[in-house]
């Protein structure tokens, strides 16, 4: 998840594009509103015979403006400008031929097609591109008026409409440009901040992983040294070296949530669990392993590492605190998760009374499993033993139970 604010460049592009769309809609509406004006002007003067030519021009320009509004390709806008310029000239000349008085009484009608020439804009554009297109349109519109003035041998008259449209949109685009310039000065780069947050969050997870690893290796090894006999046997020395090697390599820090092949992961998980069990048995804890179901599940590498480490921590707790010499591991598979229950019948404890500074349960078990999307439930009471239920989601059911095929 990221801050729900678009990067400034994207936001500026969207706003400028929206302005361009609004300009095109104005062009369409301008031509559409000109049709009733044309009817009113000609019919009220008894000039219905003069209607077909200007009406056809308006309809053609309207159709073209709708097309350019929907598909604002530069070449289409160019065609609209070319056809529209000719249309604007013929529109004015045909009406002036019907009634030269329209030049004085209804000039508002005469220059409507010329106004649509000003209202052109291509698609996603910067404010500068939008401004350039408006100015190109204004130049074309003025050219059409000049042509009319030459052909009709009248003084040049563009009317206020095109000029007002240009002024309005120049102001609008300038305000937009000013806003965007201020944005760049005042708005932080949320992209960078987001990336930094993600890095910090990852570091937080990794620090938890380091805590758990140090707890399970260094801290346990130091505890073992404190209580060890004077001479260490080969298995202890090997374990010390393995733990040191784990810490030095630190490859487990970079273990990502990527999927690996099901066989490798499951074999790894099974082998690792059995190694933990074997080690515990050597240290005096008898572990019985039960299971149900024969399905094959995908576990992420991260999840399988979490399961192994948490299982080790659970058994370590049984060995050190329960006063019991036996424990049970029960593995079962659900449709979407794997459940691991580690139970003992030892002295038990009151969960709420475990002080905050005891990291064995919180850090090595709960945080580890929840970090990979799993959940942990602990049932324990003094004298009634302890059961820890860890549930870890599987990513994909590769193969359902094969009992039937067997």
């Amino acid at each position: 998840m990221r801050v729900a604010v678009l990067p400034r460049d994207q936001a500026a592009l969207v706003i400028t594009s929206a302005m361009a769309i609004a300009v095109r809609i104005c062009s369409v509406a301008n031509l559409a509103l000109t049709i009733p004006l044309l009817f009113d002007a000609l019919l009220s003067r008894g000039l219905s015979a003069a209607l077909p030519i200007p009406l056809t021009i308006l309809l053609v320009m309207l159709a073209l403006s709708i097309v350019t509004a929907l598909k604002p390709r530069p070449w289409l806008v160019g065609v609209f400008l070319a056809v529209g310029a000719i249309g604007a000239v013929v529109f004015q000349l045909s009406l002036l031929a019907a009634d030269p008085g329209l030049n004085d009484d209804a000039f508002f009608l005469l220059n409507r097609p010329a106004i649509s020439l000003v209202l052109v804009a291509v698609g996603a554009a910067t404010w500068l591109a939008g401004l350039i297109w408006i100015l190109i349109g204004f130049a074309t519109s003025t050219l059409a008026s000049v042509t009319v003035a030459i052909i009709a041998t009248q003084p040049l008259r563009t009317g206020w409409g095109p000029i007002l449209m240009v002024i309005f949109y120049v102001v609008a685009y300038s305000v937009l440009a000013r806003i965007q310039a201020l944005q760049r000065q005042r708005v932080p780069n949320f992209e960078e901040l987001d990336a930094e947050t993600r890095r910090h969050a990852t570091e937080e997870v990794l620090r938890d992983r380091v805590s758990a690893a140090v707890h399970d290796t260094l801290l346990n090894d130091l505890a073992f040294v404190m209580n060890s006999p004077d001479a260490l046997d080969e298995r202890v020395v090997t374990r010390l070296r393995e733990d040191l090697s784990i810490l030095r390599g630190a490859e487990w820090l970079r273990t990502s949530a990527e999927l690996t092949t099901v066989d490798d992961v499951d074999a790894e998980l099974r082998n690792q669990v059995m190694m933990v069990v074997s080690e515990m048995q050597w240290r005096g804890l008898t572990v019985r392993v039960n299971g149900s179901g024969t399905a094959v599940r995908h576990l992420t590498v991260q999840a399988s590492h979490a399961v192994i480490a948490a299982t080790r921590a659970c058994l370590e707790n049984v060995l050190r605190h329960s006063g019991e010499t036996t424990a049970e591991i029960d593995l079962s598979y659900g449709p979407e998760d794997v459940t691991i229950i580690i139970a003992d019948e030892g002295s038990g404890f009151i969960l709420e009374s475990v002080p905050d500074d005891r990291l064995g349960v919180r850090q090595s078990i709960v945080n580890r499993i929840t970090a990979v999307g799993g959940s942990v439930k602990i049932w324990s009471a003094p004298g009634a033993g302890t059961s820890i239920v860890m549930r870890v989601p599987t990513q994909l059911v590769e193969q359902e139970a094969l009992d039937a095929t067997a």
Partner: protein
Amino acid sequence: MPPRRRYLLQSAQSIDPISWFTGTNVPLACAALIVVYGFALIAGQWDASRAPVAQLVSVALAAGACVLVHLITRPMRPPIGWVVAGLVFSFVVAAVAVSALDYSGAPFALEFWWAPSAITLATASLAPYLTAPKLIVLGGSATGATVVIGLSLLDPFQDSWGILGSAVLIGYSPILGVLATVTFSYSIVSTMSRMLDSPSRNEVDGRAVLDEAANVVERVTLAQLSARAAPFLERIADAGVVSPEERSLAGQLARRIRDDLVTQSNVTWLELIAQQSRLVVIDPKRRARAMDDAQRTALRALLQAILDTAGTDSGSLLVELREAPDGATAVGVSLDIALPEGLRIMHLAPYLLALGTAVEDLRVDRHALGVTFRVAPEGEQR
């Protein structure tokens, strides 16, 4: 909710508040255009006015409506509702009526009547702040009212145009303005919504982030924790024997590592920031961990902006997080800052607006700078 319906319920400002905190220039630009355009056309038809001062008053009324929009859309003001927006349009329609009354009965060219354009510009001034339906209803009503007023008071004295032509002439500018504004608003909301709903292009390379973070943690955290114990255990493994002194040292090292682990596991991301500044964090339940990435980014940006502000006593910056009964987290940020209120709000506005997109119930005390907000319980977050 279907996307199209959702697009109709948001304004350009609500979908992207950052773009419009400096956008209050838009209403001022519209006010200026009303004044310039109004005066120009009034001067052009000076003789048609029975009392030119009435025209000037109506220009002031219409421009004032846009200035009102400017004032009510200053950063951190609440969104504009129907009533306030209706009030703005009422001012402009009143300006139209005053102007029409003054021109009534005079030889006057409808196409040079400035007042309908005031409706256009007032609608444009509200473009970023109103939803498309509000713009259609209010802008459409104002346009209708303008046409009715114009036809009632001005049309009977026209001889160039029939009733249809007069109606189009009067409504021409407002119709174009409302259509353009509604298109503008809807286009921004729909496009930005789609971009925000699928921000995949903004994702960074997860592997690179992981490697970078792993390097930092390995270099600092792991190295610190294992600095003394690892060589000690290596020595023991090499020797294969343990002396009583070494047992004692193992106990000391174990206690120290345990203390370090406890300290480390209790530190949140917010406290890490506090360690690098004079920021004070009160977070006994470690609720900072309940915040998602977007909330963390937005709050971090705000805190950094405050700390970077000249005149801020960074030691007075206090962030307090408390668990609410419903599982949510109540967060309060307070500080002493020497900047005047206006400057302070403008300086912090983008950060507060960004924070507002990520949390709930953001409230800003404008006078004694304090910010409070709520982080929804896990599972209910946006």
